[in-house]
């Protein structure tokens, strides 16, 4: 088994991706497949936990164990899976609405627990699957079917939120640069602890503001900045704010924090799914005596 080398193709399913031509999600899928190949992950040891949205369909296209949750619940489902079998590579993927709207609470709590999963948010600043309402990351004043006169809400800032929640690996990538994204995703998967890769993944159908061109013009690649040190938390906070989150690359990396699994008292070092369940009646009799 150890000698198999895999290519991106090994992570393709038989289902044809139905995203609109040009959709940023193709880039994310490709990057994920390449990252998996780079790490030569055995598909059966990977669980992809997908959200609901156009983005969430990625679960049908990436070849691994794949579980499509209900809207907004990738984080706790992924947590349950990781705890059930700590040897699995658990990757969650979903939209900005899924993760920063309905699912934001779980996201923050997963970050602070530092559970060892990788979260790929496919951020298109819109609700794609429900046909183009504004999302939590949509910029203020954005006009959509649910905000014909422009939104009143200021956007959430996922990178800043993740930093303030204590994220231990934070990066941003762009669908137009899938190789860079693949590199980052591979690194995030290898990170011990919670990693967030916010993937800017334009929706070509409903979002005419946050377009490929817009990002190509504005994104700053921190990986190319020799002065940028992703181990410096204060610098990360400052930089993300300075560029109003329009950065890509490694933003913050901290590998000194133990992950949730390593801190849980008594938690099995072996996959919990293999734990012994059957005990002799005598064993339980002993516990019963505590009630005498």
């Amino acid at each position, binding site marked *: 088994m150890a000698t198999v080398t895999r290519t991106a193709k090994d992570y393709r399913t038989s289902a044809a991706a139905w995203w609109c031509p040009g959709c940023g999600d193709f880039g994310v899928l490709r990057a994920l497949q390449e990252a998996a190949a780079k790490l030569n992950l055995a598909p059966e040891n990977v669980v992809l936990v997908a959200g609901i949205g156009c983005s969430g369909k990625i679960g049908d296209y990436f*070849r691994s164990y794949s*579980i499509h949750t209900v809207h907004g619940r990738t984080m706790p489902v992924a947590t349950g899976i990781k705890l059930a079998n700590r040897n699995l590579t658990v990757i969650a993927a979903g939209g900005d609405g899924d993760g920063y709207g309905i699912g934001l609470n779980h996201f923050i*709590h997963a970050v602070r627990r530092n559970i060892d999963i990788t979260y790929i948010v496919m951020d298109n600043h819109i609700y794609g699957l429900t046909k183009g309402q504004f999302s939590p990351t949509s910029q203020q004043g954005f006009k959509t079917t649910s905000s014909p006169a422009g939104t009143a809400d200021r956007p959430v800032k996922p990178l800043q939120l993740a930093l303030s929640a204590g994220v231990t690996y934070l990066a941003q990538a762009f669908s137009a640069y899938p190789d860079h994204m693949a590199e980052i995703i591979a690194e995030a998967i290898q990170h011990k602890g919670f990693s967030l890769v916010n993937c800017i993944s334009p929706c070509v159908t409903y979002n005419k503001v946050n377009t490929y061109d817009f990002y190509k013009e504005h994104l700053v690649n921190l990986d190319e900045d020799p002065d940028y040190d992703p181990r410096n938390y204060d610098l990360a906070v400052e930089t993300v704010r300075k560029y109003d989150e329009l950065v890509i690359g490694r933003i913050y990396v901290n590998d000194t924090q133990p992950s949730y699994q390593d801190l849980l008292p008594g938690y099995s070092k072996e996959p919990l799914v293999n*734990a012994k369940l059957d005990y002799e009646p005598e064993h339980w009799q002993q516990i*019963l005596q505590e009630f005498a």
Partner: protein
Amino acid sequence: MRNELTWVVGGQQGEGIDTTGEILASALNRLGYFIYGYRTFGSRIKGGHTNYRIRIAQRPVYGIAPRIDVLIAFDQDSINRLAGEMAPGGLIIFNGKAGRAKLPPGAGDVRLVEVPMLDIARELGNPIMKNMVGVGVSAALLGLRPEDIEPVLDDRFRGKGGNLVAANKEALRRGYEAARSALGDTADVLHLEPGDRRRRYLMTGDEAAAFGALAAGCRLVAAYPITPASEIMHWMVKKLPQYGGVVVQAEDEIAAISTVVGAGYAGVRAMTATSGPGFSLMQEVLGYAGMIEAPCVIINVQRAGPSTGMPTKHEQSDLFEMVMGSHGDLPRIVLAPVSIEDCFYAAVEAFNLADRYQTPVIVALDLALGLGKQTVEDIDFSRVKIDRGQIALPDDLNWDGGDFKRYRFTESGVSPRSLPGMPGGLHLATGLEHDETGHITEDRTNRVRMMQKRLRKFADIKDVEAVRYEGPENPHVLLIGWGASYGALREARERLEAEGISTGHAHVRLLAPFPADEVNRLLSRATHVFVAENNALSQLAALIRQHADAADKRRLRTINKYDGTLFLPAEIVEPVLESITPVGVTAKEVG
């Protein structure tokens, strides 16, 4: 000398009243009495009335008794609230100076004796010791000796400092002596017949359910604290680490059940425990578990609703939601244990059913079952058989890299499942409608087949005790109930039989899928049928009517209680007698 007796201690919350009750109950249990212990408390931390009631008997008891024989009252409020429930000739021990306590008007034939329990404790240097003084007083009243209680103190305070054990023993003895000197032998009628000192066990339903889950191989609990279910998490968090397992205190109930479903999908036996408000929050993910066919167990310890309701009060009003909540046509299994002991077995069963049928299983407790404490003779651990259901074997899996048919159409409706990590078992698990391999599809034929597959999996499970029936074949009166009312209904039946009325008692244990045939058969053999439940909307009666033709309104009468307290046997017997006697019908027809 008494075969049976009810003892109560009352006072303010946060002052250790519970401890008095728990220590006495433990001691009595060790002496060989059968115990039913029930705590009345409010939704606040310190202050406000609380009481702990212990029914002590020489034979198993399943619920509270209507009359109090001994009341240890730490304040006037306890007297005001409880004096009306005193048995004729009952004894109230009041903490405090002579002449200060007042019996409320109409309290009847009750004797009030003052013992300055707090003062004694103060003398001993620690006012909280008043509880132990109270235990000593109680020992004297019940004809026990301090030595009968001391082993419990040894166990309880051991390791918390030798001083503590000694101090408590001293308080115990001082209470004992104070009572002896205040009462002499004038209260000896309250002495208990000696217990048989056989080894038995005292536990709450929450503990029994948690224990059952552990024994069944539950290795992950994700939950969010809520009265009266938190105790399940608390018990598990003490045990699971010894088995390599884990308790996740989630950020909310949606996260809790989602984590459980994730773990269940990945092959670990997992559960959550909650009460009404949390259970309502779980409705969406409950449906999701059904759709991806992930085994999972949800213990719902019901409390008084709707909404936040009365968090510390007993009720059985989540039946509708447990059986019919969540959108869409969602099959699920709902098991309602009939006793505290049965909470253990039902929890074990729940995990087996969840795995066998790849479905969410709800275990329906109610506050009285969850927090009530009862003597359990023994637990038959040989009944703990772990059946993981159909997990795919290597040979079932597709080694050629093709899609594994996770949702294969089988005759039984159950399809062998693969677990993450198994080569060849790759598939998509999704809450969207899907085909046999898990791929999303809206094909009409597939849809119908997939629905039918899910619906037939356990439409007629046979391997569950669905109804516990006690009584004659063709009773004149049939009493039907569920959950913690078992004790009251059982005693009501005994009383009716004693009055010469042939009576049966059916306790419904499987709420979904509903045992329609069995219930219909029972209904059709009885002349009068009464459904007694702790809710206002007659939810069990409604469910019976939904499924059983023999349940027409004229015959099916309901007895409802929803003031937050348990039924007393008389509250069943009286309406039955009134309504089967031709004059005046008061039991309510199903509305």
